[in-house]
């Protein structure tokens, strides 16, 4: 677009500064992970690799990581199915109460986590009379993850219009064949983006998790919360956080690549 050189430089400068500020606290986390202080006190009195060694041997952390991945995968899978269905309904149909359905989908993420948390906790324990467990946690997470899938799928469906699907049907393809061969390939990258966001939301969620996870169900954020209270574990937690941020680049990069390819295909 037509912007003066100065404007470009200013915007580039702002972006650079903001990114630097975003990574500054992460730098602090990294320094904490190699600091000799057991209580993350600033400035670090000295440096050590002890915490990295310990983190590699922390059974609890890896079990929690496994639990988090499992819960996030299950919640995202449910959200993918429900979000796609809802997006197809709302983008391809006109009906009474459409706005309400939209609001219903948005509500779990728009209401503060603590409200969602105590509402679900109360519903599970008092209304249904069940013990909190893994599945209650997955249900809770899936509920607030639907919206991310829905929005991505909805935007893509709206942008692409119905021409291709109509053409497919005119050529004699059934509903399911059309979905499989036309709609889905088209949606794939949007679902990927939505699913990834859902995964991320679930993975780092702590407040709703506190209220809906059964005893013994320790996700990574819960493990971190418990271990943050133990001074000689706090630097180990910092190590885990650094590893997570670095490792997350891989799925993010893959998702980006897929989305980008698709976006080009769509805009053409």
């Amino acid at each position: 677009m037509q912007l003066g050189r100065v404007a470009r430089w200013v915007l580039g400068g702002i972006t650079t500064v903001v990114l630097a500020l975003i990574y500054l606290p992460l730098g602090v986390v990294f320094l904490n992970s190699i600091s000799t202080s057991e209580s993350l006190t600033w400035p670090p009195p000295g440096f050590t690799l002890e915490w990295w060694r310990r983190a590699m041997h922390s059974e609890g952390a890896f079990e929690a990581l496994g639990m988090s991945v499992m819960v996030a995968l299950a919640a995202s899978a449910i959200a993918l199915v429900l979000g796609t269905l809802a997006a197809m309904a709302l983008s391809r149909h006109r009906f009474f109460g459409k706005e309400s359905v939209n609001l219903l989908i948005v509500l779990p993420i728009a209401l503060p986590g603590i409200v969602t948390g105590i509402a679900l906790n109360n519903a599970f324990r008092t209304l249904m009379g069940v013990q909190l467990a893994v599945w209650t946690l997955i249900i809770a997470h899936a509920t607030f993850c639907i919206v991310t899938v829905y929005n991505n799928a909805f935007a893509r469906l709206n942008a692409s219009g119905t021409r291709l699907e109509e053409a497919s049907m005119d050529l004699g393809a059934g509903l399911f064949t059309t979905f499989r061969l036309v709609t889905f390939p088209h949606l794939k990258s949007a679902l990927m983006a939505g699913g990834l966001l859902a995964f991320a939301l679930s993975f780092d969620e702590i407040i709703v998790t506190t209220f809906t996870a059964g005893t013994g169900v320790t996700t990574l954020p819960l493990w971190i919360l418990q271990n943050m209270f133990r001074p000689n574990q706090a630097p180990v937690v910092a190590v885990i956080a650094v590893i997570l941020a670095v490792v997350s680049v891989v799925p993010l990069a893959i998702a980006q690549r897929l989305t980008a390819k698709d976006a080009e295909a769509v805009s053409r």
Partner: protein
Amino acid sequence: MTATRVSTYLAPRRRLRLAGLLTAPVLWLGLVYVVALAALLITAFWTVDAFTGQVRVEWTTENIVEVLTEALYRTVTLRTLGIAALVTVLDIIVAVPVAFFMAKIARPRMRHLLVIAMLAPLWASYLVKVYAWRALLSGNGLIEWAVAPFGGETPGYGIVGVVLTLSYLWLPYVVMPIYAGFDRVPDRLLEASADLGGRGWRTLTAVVLPMIRPAIIAGSIFAFSLSLGDYITTTIVGGSTQMLGTLVYDNVGSANNLPLAAAISLIPIGIILVYLAAVRRTGALRSL
């Protein structure tokens, strides 16, 4: 084949197809969420038995009246609203230029790198980042060290610390929808505006901003609602600051008074519903 038969049967029946699509998501959200919320609201009208600690089913407006009349709740609500609003505004001010640069100025390769750079910190655990901010804000932390030569001092633990930390935490959630919003503005449109004589600034305000308004509002919903319910950040960098989330949490967590907690949570629920109603027409709900 049955699939074919079902397909042939459904093809002309739009209503039925719609029902097929909607049933599962609406049932899920209805059964899991709406019922849970409704039950919580009803609980606000119940009371706790002081002797056994169990919730007693006995209609009373005591909790609601208490929340509405006592000064404590008014003060904390206003403080929480102020913090949430400030966080939202700060995030939008920072996010708009960054998102614009990412979507419209950066070259594709750079753009991908920026998106990844923006999203990666989301994975570094909320709690760990808040503790990092605690270190930054401390009396001998990095901020103090950086501003002391200029006669400044760190805001320390308190409302300012909470606002800074929350803005930091939610920034990626605000940048991403706005970035997507800018991305959806076709370059052709910008060129057309320029061809018609629109200067950069005018193109921005007259063409681009109206188009991305829903995206900005979508981002604001994240920042606003996430701030509204927070209680962990406040504990760690808030010094002695209490927010609505703190009051709700304390009543459930340590006082075991779910009815009062439910009554207090009516405040953020009300605020968010009003907010959603106000922005509904902008289409923001579809940009989250």
